[in-house]
């Protein structure tokens, strides 16, 4: 069926076209812009829904064309793509609403929303890339399209950070380019489907393949903020809040992690990677990053920076799940890909709303926020508790399966990492939760903006409340058939199928 072949491409194109049209829209056409944005997001959601249903029933969605000898551009939706695509298009929809509210009255909005859509197309492209070349194409487009978002404020500080951001990510991209070409020059073009294609070359190219794996991890590790390549992430906090939300929850960081997942499962094959002996070092890198990120988060006074370091830590859970050999760990890691996205986007939405309505940026200014903004604060609390891993919230399930997976693989020491990190999570989130609900407000708010009727503009409150609700829902209904956990289960079955 032709529609099936083109569906992945249409999903990418839908937000691309939206982005380009919006980019050239005149600045004053705010309504039209919002309409286009939402229409694009909804059309995309519908198509993703169709795709989800189809892939669940083993449908094949693939299109490709040649870009030269041995260079094929392939878009293909498998179960892993669907997991990521669904996450990104759902969160795009929510973030768009939030961003419209957040950016109200600011300048250069056409540019902002245009590039914003472009960034989402790149993310969906990454999700549905069918081979390494296509992955790289979208990976780099993502880098380029996030740059204008990071420097959006146009201040000297933003421009400086933008330069650092590009330095890190394009550096990683260059390494990735060389790695992919090197791999292709040894084994030919690598499609994501042929699991274990590399095993055949193992005896001849053992050293090369190990080096290539290491280069992949370093190249992708920049975006996934693995220690010591993480320092751009906290700096990138100069960007407007919706951008931070998107960067942390779906776009950049997730793209890096998704790349690692692809490389481990669909390029090397988890079995072969295990046999090659490269998984253990990766798991230690992830474990170290988890603890390091949490430690740093503990000492951040700035709320957004604290959240950023928390991302450094949380994202490595996914890498950890990937690097432990066994279905349970994989399940935990993949589920966390979605769970972390939902929780982190909630936290960033809330942080942005606090900053916009009350001017609260620092952790110690948050006393008593709960009374003034109960809805937002509730959402924040739910997400924070989820991060700590309180059952039955989303975060609990990821950690639970990661733990079981570690035991299954005989890596009991990783349980210690998980527990330690949860403890640290509690140490940096619980004081905030305590302060916002139970401490009395003494000083006036740093910069309060009054809104009639409600605690803040609805566009800034509804999105975090919705995502927070989803944190509860995906946890409570973790066993229903389209929950992230069950979908991850489906992927795991397909990966470990004999």
């Amino acid at each position, binding site marked *: 069926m032709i529609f099936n072949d083109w569906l992945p491409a249409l999903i990418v194109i839908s937000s691309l076209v939206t982005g380009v049209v919006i980019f050239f829209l005149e600045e004053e056409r705010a309504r039209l812009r919002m309409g286009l944005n939402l229409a694009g997001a909804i059309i995309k959601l519908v198509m993703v829904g169709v795709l989800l249903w189809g892939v669940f029933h083993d449908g094949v969605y693939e299109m490709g064309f040649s870009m*030269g000898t041995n260079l094929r551009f392939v878009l293909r939706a498998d179960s892993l793509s669907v997991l990521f695509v669904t996450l990104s298009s759902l969160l795009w929809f929510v973030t768009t609403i939030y961003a419209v509210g957040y950016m109200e009255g600011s300048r*250069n909005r056409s540019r902002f929303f245009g590039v914003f859509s472009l960034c989402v197309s790149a993310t969906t492209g990454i999700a549905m890339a069918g081979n390494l070349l296509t992955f*790289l194409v979208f990976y*780099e487009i993502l*880098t380029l399209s996030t740059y204008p978002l990071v420097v959006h404020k146009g201040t000297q500080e933003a421009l400086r950070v933008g330069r650092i951001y590009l330095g890190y990510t394009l550096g990683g991209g260059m390494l990735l380019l060389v790695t992919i070409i090197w791999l292709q020059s040894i084994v030919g073009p690598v499609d994501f489907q042929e699991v274990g294609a590399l095993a055949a070359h193992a005896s001849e190219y053992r050293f090369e393949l190990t080096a290539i794996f290491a280069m992949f991890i370093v190249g992708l590790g920049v975006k996934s903020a693995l220690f010591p390549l993480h320092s751009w992430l906290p700096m990138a906090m100069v960007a407007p809040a919706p951008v931070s939300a998107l960067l942390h929850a779906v776009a950049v960081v997730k793209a890096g992690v998704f790349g690692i997942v692809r490389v481990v499962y669909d390029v090397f094959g988890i079995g072969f990677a295990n046999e090659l002996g490269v998984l253990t070092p990766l798991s230690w890198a992830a474990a170290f990053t988890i603890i390091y990120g949490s430690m740093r988060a503990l000492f951040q006074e700035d709320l957004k920076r604290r959240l950023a370091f928390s991302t450094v830590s949380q994202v490595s859970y996914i890498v950890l799940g990937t690097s432990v050999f066994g279905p349970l760990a994989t399940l935990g890691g993949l589920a966390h890909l979605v769970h972390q996205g939902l929780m982190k986007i909630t936290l960033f939405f809330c942080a942005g709303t606090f900053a916009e309505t009350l001017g609260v940026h620092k952790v110690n200014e948050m006393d008593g926020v709960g009374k003034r903004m109960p809805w937002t604060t509730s959402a924040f609390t739910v997400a924070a508790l989820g991060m700590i891993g309180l059952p039955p919230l989303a975060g609990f399930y990821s950690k639970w399966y990661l733990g079981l997976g570690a035991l299954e693989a005989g890596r009991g020491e990783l349980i210690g990492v998980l527990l330690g990190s949860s403890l640290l999570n509690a140490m940096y989130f619980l004081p905030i939760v305590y302060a916002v609900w139970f401490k009395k407000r003494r000083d006036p708010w740093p910069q309060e903006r009054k809104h009639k009727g409600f605690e803040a503009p609805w566009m800034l409150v509804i999105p975090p409340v919705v995502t927070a609700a989803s944190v509860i829902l995906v946890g409570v209904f973790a066993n229903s058939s389209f929950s992230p956990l069950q979908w991850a289960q489906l992927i795991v079955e397909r990966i470990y199928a004999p």
Partner: protein
Amino acid sequence: MNPEFLSWIPWLVVFPLMGAIVTFTFPRIATWAGLFTGVLILVATVGLVAQTLAYGANTYSLGGWGAPLGIDFRVDGLSAWMLVISAVVGACVSLYAIGYFPPGSKASDEEKNHKRRYFWPLWMFLWAGLNGLFLSNDIFNLYITLEMVGFSAVALVALANSRNALTAAMRYLLVGLMGSLFFLLGVAFLYGTYGTLDLTLLGERSRANMATWVAISLMTAGLIVKTAAFPLHFWLPPAHSNAPTPVSALLSALVTKGPFYILLRLWFFSFASLDTTYADYLFGALGAMGLIWGAAHALRQSRLKLLVAYSTVAQLGYLFLVFPLARAEETGFTAWTGVLLFLAAHALAKTAMFMAAGNILQALGHDTISRLAGISRLLPKSVFALALAGVSLMGLPPSGGFIGKWLLLDAAISQGRWWIVIAVLCGTALAIGYVVRVIRFAFEDPIDLPQVKSVSAVMEWTALATALLASLMALASSLPLDLITIDAPAHVWPEVGVGP
């Protein structure tokens, strides 16, 4: 089969020559006559490509005499590809020139009218020279076309009529003439040795001896000067940056490619049988140094057009990597395709970049990079074009530069030439540096915007369209493969090297 009676080959030279005469004689209609000629050339190029795809490489003997006595025009995959590039770039520049040299209605616009009056005939003459260069199968004829291109290019630079432009034009002319004399001396030696000027016959007769080496060394030296390859590039930045914008675009995109094309002809076709190991290393080393040196200097420029000009020096360095890389048996074709795609990508990207830079220059009255703040709100299309072209220069997807760089790296890694990989990566890092240096100012958001002059819509849209072509080229990069393989050098493409 030789479709001589209907060949499109001569028309590719005749059309622009006629265009030159008409635009010179009837200055009132120069713009429209020029555009019409552009359309004719596009049509002829399409026809020629179709003919080449259908019948393979073919030869056209001027006056029906044929080599060795007469002069042959010959088209194969390489020539056809160069013609396509020059037709596309030429069309874009012609469109841009409508806006850049507007028909001045008032009598007071004497200087404007003067420029428009001379731009079109010179540009048509340049186009004729370029097409002739890509078609000639005769080394003396190559000399003539080189001079046609060179003289008209110099005159076009001088059109800017500023002190810097005149000096740059003079230096360009002198260096170019000297380069041509080197080339001509080489031609003399070759003729003395082999008794023919025909490239094909030279290819059949060539053997390694002293005279041959002296001859091709002389010719190569001359051509390197004219291509402005490192370290003989010194004349290029001032000439390219001081010329009127459409001319800058033409010089960087096309004129530098002409001598490079002759180098390919000599080293990969006529004298491919010589042992070129050391020469290849030399070219490769020059290319690697050039791409780093040029990019490093681009990074240090304070003026936008100079930055773009230095980036040309850098990008030319990549082209020279073809010499070591395309000799290999297995991956030679990868490198060959890579360089030809890279060449096209650079032509388009550089054209777009000069157009965008020219728009900014015209709007602000200066092109000092540190004073570009706020420009993205005034000229969004031009800045977007600049960014897109920059993406191609950096070699990031989905631009043509990306696919070219990918193929080059593929060949270099497969052949274990890691020094080339490292050089390319350094060049890329520096390119990122100089592109970002410009782009970041576009995002600066000053309170009060600078005063600007208006820029015509044609100029903005042409810049954007050209940049889009460059940045989306990768998606269509499998299309030219069939064309490029026609009569590609035997060792580069063993399967089809014999020709159909």
